[in-house]
C-alpha cells in the first residue's frame, strides 16, 4: 500500500481545509481501504471525517427526511421513520453487504462506492479506462458476467454495485454537497454519471467537495415500496439484478410509480419508460410484465451477461407485486 499522511477533522470547515494534493476523505473505509490494499486507490493523504456531526436522521417540518452523510448504514436500516415511510430504503440497505460492513459504511460513502469489475480491481490488467483513461476496456471482450447491460459504452461496462443508491433513485432523493463554491443540491438521478468517454468520472462530486446530507422528499408513493435483490448466494453478495419500486395506488389504479434497477447498469438506473407504461393503468401482473419489458427494451447483452435481461424483468415484476400487495 502507498504510504499516506493522515489527519482528522471535527467539522465540515476543518474537513475542507485539510484537503491537499491527492487527498481523499475516509469515513467507513469499506471501499477505500479495500481499494488501497489493491493499489487501485493511491491517495497521499487521508482526511478522517468520522467525527463530523452529520450522523442524524431527522424528519423536517415539510415531512421530508434528512439523512446525514455520516449516518451508518446499519442505523439507517433500523430507523423507525425509514421503515415506516420509506421501507424500500431499509430493505435495500439490509440486502447489502454484512452487518459488520453496515456498521462501518456511511450514507455518503455508499453513494461513492466503486465498481466490483474484476479488471478495475486488479492493476495487473493494463486495459481499464476507469483506472487508466485511454488504456482500453478488458471487460468488453473478457469475462463480463457481472457487468452492465444498460448504460455502457465502448469505454466501460462496469456495473454500479450499490443497493442503497437504487432505492434512493426510486425515492427521488436529493444529495447535498458542500465545497469551495458553496452548497449545492443534486437530484440522485443526476448524481452518478454514465461512463461515456470518461469512465474515470463517476459522480458529480468535484475535488474539494464533501457530501453533507441526503434528503428524501415526502411523497405519495414512498410508503408503498419494496426492494428485490437477486444474486448467486442468498446473502453477503452483490446483485446480479435488483429492483426498487414505489407505487401510489388509488384502489387498483396506479397514480404514479417509481422504478429503479440495480446490478444491471453502469449507474443506479431509473426506468422512466417502465414508469410511463404503468402510470394511469391498473395494478396487475400483466401490466407489471409489460412495464418490465419496457424497462429492459434498450438493454444490450455482452457475451456472458445476457441472462441479466430476463433476471431484471423478473426482479421488477416481483418487486411490483410485493409493493402492490402491501
Amino acid at each position: 500500500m502507498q504510504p499516506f499522511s493522515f489527519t482528522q477533522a471535527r467539522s465540515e470547515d476543518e474537513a475542507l481545509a485539510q484537503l491537499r494534493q491527492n487527498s481523499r476523505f475516509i469515513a467507513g473505509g469499506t471501499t477505500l481501504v479495500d481499494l488501497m490494499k489493491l493499489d487501485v486507490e493511491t491517495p497521499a493523504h487521508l482526511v478522517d471525517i468520522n467525527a463530523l456531526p452529520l450522523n442524524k436522521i431527522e424528519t423536517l417540518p415539510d415531512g421530508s427526511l434528512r439523512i446525514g452523510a455520516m449516518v451508518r448504514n446499519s442505523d439507517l436500516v433500523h430507523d423507525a421513520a425509514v421503515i415506516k415511510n420509506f421501507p424500500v430504503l431499509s430493505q435495500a440497505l439490509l440486502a447489502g453487504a454484512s452487518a459488520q460492513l453496515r456498521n462501518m459504511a456511511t450514507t455518503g460513502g455508499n453513494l461513492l462506492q466503486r465498481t466490483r469489475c474484476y479488471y478495475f480491481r486488479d492493476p495487473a490488467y493494463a486495459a481499464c479506462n476507469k483506472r487508466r483513461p485511454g488504456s482500453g476496456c478488458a471487460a468488453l471482450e473478457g469475462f463480463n458476467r457481472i457487468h452492465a447491460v444498460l448504460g455502457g459504452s465502448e469505454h466501460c461496462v462496469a456495473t454500479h454495485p450499490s443497493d442503497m443508491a437504487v432505492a434512493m433513485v426510486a425515492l427521488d432523493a436529493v444529495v447535498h454537497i458542500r465545497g469551495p463554491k458553496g452548497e449545492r443540491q443534486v437530484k440522485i438521478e443526476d448524481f452518478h454519471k454514465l461512463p461515456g468517454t470518461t469512465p474515470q468520472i463517476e459522480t458529480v462530486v468535484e475535488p474539494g467537495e464533501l457530501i453533507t446530507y441526503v434528503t428524501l422528499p415526502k411523497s405519495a408513493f414512498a410508503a408503498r415500496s419494496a426492494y428485490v435483490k437477486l444474486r448467486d448466494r442468498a446473502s453477503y453478495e452483490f446483485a446480479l439484478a435488483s429492483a426498487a419500486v414505489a407505487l401510489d395506488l388509488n384502489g387498483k389504479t396506479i397514480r404514479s410509480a417509481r422504478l429503479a434497477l440495480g446490478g444491471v447498469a453502469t449507474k443506479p438506473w431509473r426506468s422512466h419508460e417502465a414508469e410511463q407504461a404503468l402510470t394511469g393503468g391498473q395494478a396487475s401482473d400483466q401490466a407489471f410484465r409489460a412495464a418490465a419489458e419496457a424497462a429492459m427494451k434498450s438493454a444490450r447483452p455482452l457475451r456472458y451477461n445476457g441472462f441479466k435481461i430476463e433476471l431484471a424483468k423478473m426482479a421488477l415484476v416481483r418487486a411490483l407485486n410485493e409493493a402492490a400487495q402491501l
Partner: protein
Amino acid sequence: MDSPGWNRRSFLKAAAAAGAAAAMPDIAVPEPQVKPDVPASSQSIRLKVNGTSRQLNVDTRATLLDTLREQMGMAGTKKGCDHGQCGACTVHVNGRRINSCLTFAVMHDGDEVTTIEGLADAGQLSPMQAAFVEHDAFQCGYCTPGQIMSATALLREPVGNTDDDLREAMSGNICRCGAYPNILAAIKSVRSQHS
C-alpha cells in the same frame, strides 16, 4: 519495487480481486507500486483493548487487524480474506461489530476495542463461547473467533426472532467447514437464555 510480470504476490492479489474469474489474458507488467516521493508516516494512538489502555506508534497503513495481531501479539482475531469478504477479522469497536481488516488503526485513537481474547472473565468462558463449545459449533476453528464476536454483538442488535433472521444477521461470517447449523444452535441457546 519492480515486479517481474506474474509473480506470487500479483497472483494472490488477482485471486482476491477477481473472485471466481477468468483465465489470464491481457496481463501486463504491473506498474511499480511504491511512489518514492511520499514517505511512510507513523502516528501515536491510544487504544483501549479489552479494558486495557495502550499507547502505540503505528504506520498509517496498518489496519486494526494487523495492529492487533502483529504489533500487539493478539493473534486470536484472524485474517481470512483481508478484504471484508469473510468476517474472520470481526472485532467490536465501541460495542459494534466491524471488520478490522478494512479500517486503519490510526482512525481509532481513543476507541474501545474488544477482541476474542477479551470475552472470557477471569478464565471463565463467556456464555457465547461456552455455547459454541457445547454445541460443537466449529471444526477447524479458524472462523470461530469472528463467529463468536459477531454473535456476541448480534445479541445487542434489533434482529428478528426466526432462524432465517439469525442466519441473515450472521451472514457476514463465512465458515468453510460448514459448521453453520451448530453455530445457529449455539446462538439460539444463548438468545433464549437472554429473553
